[in-house]
């Protein structure tokens, strides 16, 4: 795997944040620890630290996003960076400009960091290899490949509520095949020491050979969430609800939707997670999404601190200096 080579500098420090795969456990822990230091910033009256003052962050979104872009935007602003939000889907590519040319133009605007979301797997890796050496790239989701900051905010949430990783039973449920969130979470949770990691879904939504990533596969939800400490529900994309992969949203909900009755099969203190936005009544019942075991909104809040940690780390500014 070539990706980790360019993520780390000669001293093993983070230069880009492209994929969880290949990152050592210590570094993931460091992200979580730094995020802990940033978390209180959001509770202050003045929600700012000066770590990235004078730096310019460009959010390059080649596919639409609300939550991820907004939290990256907030994270950068709380670090005092100047932020440029570019919805590229609607501009250059429609005019036939190549990705490489788009990047050259943005470089000419003297940005220091690119946060990138793109619909093709490997796009963040490609961009990191193209840009000038002083620019850091953070992957905000590439195709079906990885969404590493999402995995870190999920790990942060799990550690907050469960205290650690090693002894946990975690089930990831739903459309694993098309999910970059699932892939990054699998990489992160395995690296952090989760031994019992399961993926649950119909065979049409579980990609072949996923066992090689260190998970067990189950196509029955009741069986898959038995005794789980964390139940992680994936979003079902609209276009897959009625297709050759699935017959209907209602059948999907009957077989794979998380209801209160089903959740009762998990550990009594299990938490329920979801990367959002949720489809109520498709992958999750409202009573569960809004219930006491749901930590879905906490995930969003923690996302800001985690993204602040990652941004400050790739820019080489340590969290301790400003956030304490």
């Amino acid at each position, binding site marked *: 795997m*070539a990706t980790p080579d360019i993520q780390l500098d000669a001293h093993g420090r983070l230069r880009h944040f492209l994929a969880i795969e290949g990152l050592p456990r210590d570094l993931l822990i460091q992200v979580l620890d730094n995020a802990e230091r940033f978390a209180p910033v959001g509770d202050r009256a003045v929600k700012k630290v000066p770590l990235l003052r004078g730096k310019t962050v460009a959010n390059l979104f080649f596919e639409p996003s609300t939550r991820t872009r907004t939290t990256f935007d907030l994270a950068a602003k709380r670090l005092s960076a100047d932020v440029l939000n570019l919805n590229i889907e609607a501009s250059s590519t429609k005019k036939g400009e190549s*990705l*490489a040319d788009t990047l050259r133009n943005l470089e000419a605007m003297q940005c220091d960091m690119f946060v990138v979301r793109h619909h093709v797997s490997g796009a963040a890796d490609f961009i990191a290899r193209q840009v000038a050496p002083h620019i850091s790239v953070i992957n905000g989701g590439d195709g*079906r*490949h990885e969404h590493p900051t999402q995995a870190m905010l999920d790990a942060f949430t799990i550690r907050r509520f469960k205290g650690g990783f090693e002894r946990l039973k975690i089930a990831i449920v739903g459309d694993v095949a098309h999910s970059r969130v699932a892939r990054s979470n699998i990489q992160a949770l395995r690296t952090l020491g989760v031994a019992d990691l399961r993926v649950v879904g119909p065979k049409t939504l579980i990609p*072949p050979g*996923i066992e090689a990533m260190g998970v067990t596969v189950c196509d029955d939800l009741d069986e898959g969430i038995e005794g789980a400490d964390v139940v992680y529900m994936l979003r079902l994309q609209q276009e897959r609800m009625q297709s050759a992969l699935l017959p209907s949203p209602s059948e999907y909900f009957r077989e794979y939707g998380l209801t209160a009755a089903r959740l009762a099969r998990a550990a009594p203190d299990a938490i329920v997670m979801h990367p959002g936005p949720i489809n109520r009544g498709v992958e999750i019942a409202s009573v569960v999404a809004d219930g006491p075991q749901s930590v879905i909104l906490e995930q969003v809040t923690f996302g800001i601190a985690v993204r602040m940690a990652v941004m400050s780390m790739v820019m080489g500014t340590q969290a301790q200096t400003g956030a304490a």
Partner: protein
Amino acid sequence: MLRIRDGRVIDPASGHDGIADVWIDDGHVVAVGRAPRGAGKAREIPAKGMVVCPGFADPGSHLREPGYERKATIASETRAAVAGGFTTLCCTPDTSPVLDNPSVLEHILHEAGEAGLARVVCLGALTVGLQGEVLSEMHALKAAGCVGVTNLDRAIKDTAVLKHALAYAASAELTVFLHAEDYWLARQGNMHEGPVSTRLGVPAIPASAEVIAVHRDLTLLAEAGARAHFCRLSAGDSVKPIVDARRRGLPVTADVALSNLCFTADDVGGFDANFHLRPPLRDARDRAALRKGVKSGAIDAIGAYHEPHDADAKAAPFGLTEPGVSSYETFLPALLALVEAGAFDLPAAIAAASLAPHRVLGQAGGTLAVGAPADLCVFDPALRWVPTAASLLSAGKNSPYLDQPLTGRVTLTLVGGRIVHELTGPRA
């Protein structure tokens, strides 16, 4: 007269493998071994320590002209080909305009003649514009000189069109060069479906896309009575049905691209676009079965499937890059590495790279038999060298071998008895 002295002469057609002299006169091989009767003074080319063998033939060369001169030209690629020991190239019809009518063919043959290096033959498009809907004028293509017809990897969606195209090709007595692939299973994919595509989240092409199409095509071929050549097999399970069909008397041959014998999907590793191929690199089990197929003769030929690209074609995220490898100049050392690894022996490798593809294409080369055209190459099997973007003669620098040490290099290539390539300068 030319005398290539003291080389290890390997001629799979006759089974010859031993130190000998090759005598050439008037564009043809006139003797292997002792001087021919009445031999006059010959120019001598020393070949001690070298291998002398028939020149290679590529059944699928994307020469990019007309239409894609930004990638390569017939002049640049025939130059690269002879440097790699290739003496016959079969040009694919994916030009712009598509080679579905004689005028494009005439243009290509004219340019190849001007370049005056490797011999160039052409495949015509099986359907107009390679669109898979309307049959091309196959009789006209044949009359103009096409050696076969193909729809390349543009899978024909409608099985009825495919059935009719095969039947029509049969009545035109043209060999159909098939890239067996089920349109629906392959259409969104960029690599082999397996653990690597799962890990990288790259849309995938299952092996079944090819295996199903091989079975389907064989059934249709039997009905149509057409002669066919299966191009660049990638799945191990494709081999047996072809062998079985041949046993039943079907006139079918098959080849594999050298890349599929050398690499697997694991080599895609971290989105390396140099390993983006169509059909894709599959897993180690497939690769082993393909190697075994070459060894047993179940797979007749090994092709270069030379696909030169401009830098922009590979400068994008993996799935948005264009598939293919620029392969002429690294073909021989890669083939020798397979021999070294025990995949098959050297005479078998040379047979699969020279004799077999020449036969598939209906061409006279591929042998050093007396009277055959003197299309041959001499290579140093031990010469170590490092290909670089600057040193490759192909306009396509899309090679996974750039800046890697390789062993074995073509030092001399003859086409029709004429020296068309001679390695000069520093050799390491």
